[in-house]
């Protein structure tokens, strides 16, 4: 989700055939200007890109099988054979971190998107229809937001049982009310604009007005929300897996690499704790930097500042 605008631009620049020729160049220029004006945001983009590359090419980048255990080499320190050492089962930490990027990214992106889309549609309808629909939707969102994110995700994951898909759903649930709030408030503003009135006067149906005319204009807030939530989704996944309620074996997950059983060996083998945590922190740091910069660029209220 985060790198979508970039890959979109790159693809377009390469494949665009018809249409105004100046556009790809101008878009590229915008990207360059973004990097110049927001160096921290560009650094974040690089980190996110690095994580994506790691996730996509995990099989190539990993030096060992991430799930193969080796009883002869448990808890061995970083070496030329095991770059970041091995864990208590003799599994290669470096390869597990590379493959863990895949799990973190899939869970993070999928849960954020799922929550943002469900919440976004709820917010769109609630803001556009108004009245009783709005009131009822808002009260449901109140209930969902009355619990801390992690607690809600914990309850959800316990209810659903451990599996990759269920963890995604569990983490997406707390995102729903946040997305609904953001989209609703921008829909409320857009609903009153003259062009919406004009569309209605032309006889465009409510459904079409809502989805074709209003929804695209909520893209800015939507992007800000999803990048902001992506980092916290990755953190929640790590916490759930740490507690043993997250992504199950055999997927290597950064959170579970830190889990209680690994913590027991922390004194003997600090690399067990240091590297997976650093991976989580860097990934979330990247999305946060990028999210901040995107918010500055996309939020018109902050643009003049």
């Amino acid at each position, binding site marked *: 989700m985060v790198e979508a605008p970039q890959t979109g631009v790159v693809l377009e620049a390469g494949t665009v055939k018809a249409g105004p020729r100046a556009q790809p160049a101008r878009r590229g220029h915008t990207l360059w200007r973004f990097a110049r004006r927001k160096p921290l945001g560009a650094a974040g983009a690089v980190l996110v890109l690095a994580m994506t590359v790691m996730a996509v090419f995990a099989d190539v980048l990993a030096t060992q099988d991430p799930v193969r255990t080796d009883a002869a080499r448990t808890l061995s320190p970083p070496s030329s054979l095991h770059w970041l050492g091995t864990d208590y089962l003799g599994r290669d930490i470096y390869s597990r971190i590379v493959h863990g990027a895949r799990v973190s990214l899939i869970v993070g992106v999928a849960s954020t998107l799922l929550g943002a889309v469900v919440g976004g549609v709820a917010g769109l309808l609630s803001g556009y229809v108004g009245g009783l629909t709005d009131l009822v939707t808002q009260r449901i969102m109140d209930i969902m937001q*009355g*619990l801390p994110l992690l607690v809600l995700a914990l309850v959800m994951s316990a209810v659903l049982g451990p599996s990759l898909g269920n963890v995604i759903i569990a983490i997406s649930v707390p995102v729903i009310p946040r997305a609904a709030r953001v989209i609703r408030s921008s829909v409320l503003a857009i609903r009153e604009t003259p062009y919406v009135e004009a569309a209605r006067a032309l006889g465009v149906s409510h459904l079409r007005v809502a989805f074709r005319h209003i929804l695209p204009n909520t893209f800015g807030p939507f992007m800000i929300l999803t990048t902001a939530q992506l980092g916290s989704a990755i953190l929640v996944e790590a916490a759930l897996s740490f507690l043993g309620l997250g992504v199950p074996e055999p997927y290597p997950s950064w959170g579970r690499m830190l889990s209680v059983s690994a913590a027991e060996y922390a004194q003997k083998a600090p690399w067990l704790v240091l590297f997976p945590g650093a991976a989580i922190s860097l990934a979330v740091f990247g999305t946060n930097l990028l999210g901040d910069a995107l918010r500055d660029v996309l939020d018109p209220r902050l643009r003049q500042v």
Partner: protein
Amino acid sequence: MRTYILTRLMIAILTLLGMSLVIFVLMRIAPGDVVDMIFASAGYVDPAAKAEITKELGLDQPIAVQYIRWLGEVLRGDLGKSYRYDIPAWQIVRPRIPVTVELAILAMLVASLIGVPAGVISAVRQDRWLDYVMRVLSLAGLSMPSFWLGMVIILLLVGSLGWIPALTYVSPFQDLKAHVLQFLFPALAVGYRSSALIMRITRSSLLDVMREDYIRTAYAKGQRERVVIWRHALKNAFLPVITVLGIEFAFLVGGLVVTETVFNMPGVARFLVEAILWRDYPVVQNLVMFIAVVVILANFAVDILYGWLDPRVRYG
């Protein structure tokens, strides 16, 4: 003011009712119940014995009946019995509350002591290198899982001082120094994260206020920068900071789950995970409702504080 509080109270009660219903239903449609958990380690079990316990706990009834029965008990002040420990749920939960609350308060204290000054400095030096350093440091705080930070702190402490976190809770009346040590490091680990949030909101809110006319007036009449910022600007910039403090406090009570696990603290949050894993419904229900009440109270306190701090705020 009175109508405002009454309306708020009504909404709060409705929210709590809705939440209790959602949690109640969710926990019961979850695969497996406490009876399965109890017998899971026993090997073969007589189905009749299982059915008897299920009946005794009332788990054979329809969910609606169970919920209404539960609601009636709560209204009479009975919070139910823990399935697992066979003692009133409240007896297990109550001693754990002070641990979590103390940890949350200490963490907020750490967060404000770091976050507010850092935010002010960052705003005053906007877009200079010090601002950049502060912003990167605060974002780093938001990016690190606080339980990982806790693990690293423990690693460093054991490595350099040979200090090992206490395995059991130390009461302040028993040994104050050990108690403080036990709470200090988790509070630092969690507080760093919250301080990042507070720093960011202080910075942006102060930047907004600094653009107001009365600040220019204060400068124009020759007041020193320190007085303008700390006496004039910060007062008005503080409202959003209060909001974030309130929300953070409420969310810490639940968010401490993992930190309490890392530092071996017998708090509410950690117990929630255990209770969920054991399908100990009365305990889960109580803990979740407790967290919900804290969230609602914190929001309410923030709103009341608003009116007290800013006479412009009126309750409709």
